[in-house]
């Protein structure tokens, strides 16, 4: 192995270096000047994100444990973009007096989860997959509890670590079945030996249950709302987009790479999961007043829609999932960005407290409205295109009943998204959230999100770009 081979892992290597740099800076910089660490982290990470777009050779390392190609890099790029926005949105939180000392640990935890996700996406066997998964999960649970002193934060952390441990256990149990029946942990070999053996199917079901926890599919979603509510808003945004996105990507990859031979089985499974996830997620979202819980259930429902794209089970299906995730990153982070800036400025995070927001903070309200419309799939914003292509993927396989359930669910989701729009634009309030000027970095992050929401849909070449990448898949 020479240096050029190692460069295949440039994404992971750069992130590791970044995490170490922060660690060293944290030790060597004086207490009063620690603000600079955040700035350096953002700049360096921005550079890493940009470098990620430079095309790269594909290849394998460590005897097939690690592999990379253009599609996998593009998935990592989607996550990087999301992480960059999360970083920008975290600045306001880091600047709070009580969080100053936590800045470096917060950043290191964030980056280590990303390293884990990148390894997971690039994994070529179940071992690397599992290591990546845990590297992504354990720091994430610490992130959920990063508000150490608040009881909600502790509750969120405990709930998250327990459910993660449980789901990882179930996942491992499933993998052990798969290993036992196929005699290999390498994806390529497992795929060749995977049949309709009932023990293998059982192993697959356990595996799916474990993944269901990570993506928060119903009925494995119960941790989601509590964890989002207890963690700081920026972390909740991170969990709903980056964490979920990585899990969706690896699920797609594994379903096709490893479990391609039992496509019928997992399509049946996903059929049920998709219907329950969309419906339950939507029905619970209707009842929420806390915006973090609201967005938690909305993101559960969105996961149900993503499953439709996976069920498309061909090139267009995979493309639609990756494309949707890209849009979802911008959209959901725009919504979380607005929630977080309002929470940090005024301490409000309920829908009713947003009453009359448009009269005092028109730009924030418009951003929120566009984000919600994009989540609901209303043209001309990008969410419409994302959802349309997911639905097209499902229809291409002839799942019209499922499609009908999905589109009706999309209408239900429109109802609760409109509730927030109604609060901001229509409801009168004698005592609305007063006008405030949000800081520059938050505004930049929201502007990035908005431009994504506006333009990704119109630019057909972005979809075509992913479509070309999935050819080699």
């Amino acid at each position, binding site marked *: 192995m020479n240096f050029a081979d190692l460069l295949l892992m440039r994404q992971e290597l750069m992130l590791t270096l970044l995490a170490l740099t922060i660690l060293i800076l944290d030790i060597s910089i004086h207490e009063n000047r620690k603000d600079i660490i955040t700035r350096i982290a953002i700049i360096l990470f921005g550079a890493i994100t940009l470098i990620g777009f430079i095309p790269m050779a594909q290849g394998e390392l460590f005897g097939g444990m690690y592999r990379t190609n253009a599609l996998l890099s593009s998935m990592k790029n989607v996550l990087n973009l999301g992480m960059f926005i999360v970083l920008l949105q975290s600045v306001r939180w880091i600047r709070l007096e009580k969080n100053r000392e936590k800045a470096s640990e917060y950043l290191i935890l964030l980056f280590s989860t990303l390293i884990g996700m990148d390894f997971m996406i690039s994994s070529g066997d179940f071992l690397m997959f599992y290591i990546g998964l845990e590297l992504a999960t354990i720091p994430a649970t610490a992130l959920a509890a990063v508000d150490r002193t608040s009881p909600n934060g502790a509750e969120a952390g405990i709930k998250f670590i327990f459910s993660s441990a449980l789901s990882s256990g179930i996942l491992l149990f499933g993998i052990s079945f798969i290993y036992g029946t196929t005699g290999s942990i390498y994806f390529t070999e497992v795929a060749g030996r995977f049949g309709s053996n009932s023990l293998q199917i059982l192993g697959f079901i356990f595996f799916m249950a474990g993944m269901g926890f990570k993506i928060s599919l119903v009925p494995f979603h119960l941790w989601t709302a509590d964890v989002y509510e207890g963690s700081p808003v920026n972390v909740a945004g991170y969990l709903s987009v980056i964490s979920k996105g990585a899990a969706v990507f690896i699920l797609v990859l594994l379903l096709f790479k490893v479990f391609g031979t039992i496509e019928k089985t997992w399509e049946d499974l996903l059929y049920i999961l998709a219907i329950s996830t969309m419906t339950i997620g939507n029905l619970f979202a209707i009842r929420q007043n806390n915006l973090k819980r609201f967005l938690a259930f909305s993101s559960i429902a969105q996961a149900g829609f993503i499953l439709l794209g996976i069920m498309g089970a061909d090139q267009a299906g995979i493309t639609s999932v990756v494309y949707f995730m890209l849009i979802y990153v911008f959209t959901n982070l725009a919504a979380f960005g607005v929630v977080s800036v309002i929470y940090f400025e005024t301490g409000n995070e309920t829908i009713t407290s947003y009453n009359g927001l448009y009269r005092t903070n028109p730009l924030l309200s418009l951003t929120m409205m566009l984000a919600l419309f994009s989540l609901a799939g209303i043209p001309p914003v990008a969410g419409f295109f994302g959802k349309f292509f997911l639905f097209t993927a499902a229809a291409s396989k002839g799942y019209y009943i499922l499609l*009908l359930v999905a589109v009706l669910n999309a209408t239900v989701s429109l109802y609760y998204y409109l509730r927030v729009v109604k609060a901001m634009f229509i409801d009168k309030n004698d005592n609305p959230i007063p006008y405030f000027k949000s800081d520059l970095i938050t505004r930049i992050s929201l502007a990035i999100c908005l431009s994504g929401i506006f333009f990704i849909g119109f630019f057909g070449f972005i979809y075509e770009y992913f479509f070309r990448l999935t050819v080699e898949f």
Partner: protein
Amino acid sequence: MSILWYFILIPVLTIVAILFTRDCKSTRVAAAGGMFLQLLMAVALLFMYFAQRNAGNGAEILFYTDHVWFPSLNIHFTTGVDGIAVSMIMLTAVVVFAGIFASWEMEDLSREFFISLIILATGVFGFFISLDLFTMFLFYELAVIPMYLLIGIWGSGPKEYAAMKLTLMLMSGSALLLVGLLGIYFSSVTVNGQHSFNILQIAQTPLPLSAQRYFFPFTFVGFGILGALFPLHTWSPDGHASAPTAVSMLHAGVLMKLGGYGCFRVAMFLMPQAANEMAWIFIILTTISVVYGAFGAIWQKDLKYINAYSSVSHCGLVIFALLMMNKTSMDGAIIQMISHGLMTALFFALIGMIYGRTHTRMINEMGGLMKVIPFLSVAYVIAGLASLGLPGLSGFVAEMTVFIGSFQHHDTFHRVATIIVTTSIVVTAVYILRVVGILLLGPIKDDHYHHLGDARWYEKLSAGSLIFSIAGIGIAPLWLSNIISGSLGPYVVRLAQAVTGF
């Protein structure tokens, strides 16, 4: 650049211009300027269309442009118009223009109001110029969603309820529509391994009958909800009653036409056999629509509710006539769309102006308005007469053609349905004359009314442009009828094939 693209470009530029305005005066001037330009473009399009036809261009679709958007899914941005689309664009341009002037006094958040209104108009224009199911669907939803804000923010009465009800019902319609459209897409013949969203391409080879049977109901009902198809019309009275004036005008005048136009251009054109098989179900439903809407209007006391129910009745007549599937009745259906669009817009504009003066819409609280606001009252009478089908106005041309066309069927079912529907004319006369009698004639009920001022210049402009169009169609119906029936050929041929079984 095709002339049709200006119909998207001008509204978008108008919105950008409005973003830079400072106060409500410059906002409305910008909006009015943009929409006046749009009206000029529509007139120009009409003349260019005539010029092409006179030059002997017999193509089914004129000004055809085709740009690939998402190559892997074969989604294009395809535009093109035939005579029907041209007349719908003309209608839209007139109604939007009148709508801007009807909301001249909008001061609360006027920028947002005009932007939402123009987004709605963009959706409608885009829908009529599209020939690709994807963009059609996109523009359809784009036209529906601003309604929520328009009704919710600037509406009156139980506006939040009405806005939510309207949006959710219409969006459920578009949900069904999406299933139908994707079904059509995947049932279409593949060329070079790709299905097609292009209406003209899909139409070249008939869809398999089984697919038609599945997806016709989805598509037809999906569009039908927007066309106030009984029993899914309930969003319409509440929505119209709560909406601000210009929104009611646009909504009843133009947006509901999207439903009828879609039923016709997508559902029936692409799936003629299924349309023929299932027509009887929808004929029964629309017959109920027509009669129920007319009777519903009699019972109402609120001017807007009266007009909303009357819209249910008239839009029911549109779909009824389409389902009769012969050239005369379909010709009538299109004229009815345009005629109803104009007169209902005039109605809603006048109701808004009267309400702005008397601050009530209850007919029993008003009276003798003819003595104090003669211009508005006379205009109201003209709208009423057009609605009840007086010869010389557009309503007569439309309804006459519809009834003659429908009665051409020889079987009992169609004839009975036609006779039942025809009775609605009488009922229409009852509710129109009742309102005119109570509202405009008789003694002045309230002393405050003595001081009411008559229409201002912008109100006259708004009402005048609509009256001009209504009378124009009524006096010289042939030119409109010629544009439409010249383009009906392909539809009639396809439907006739379906009936005779080829």
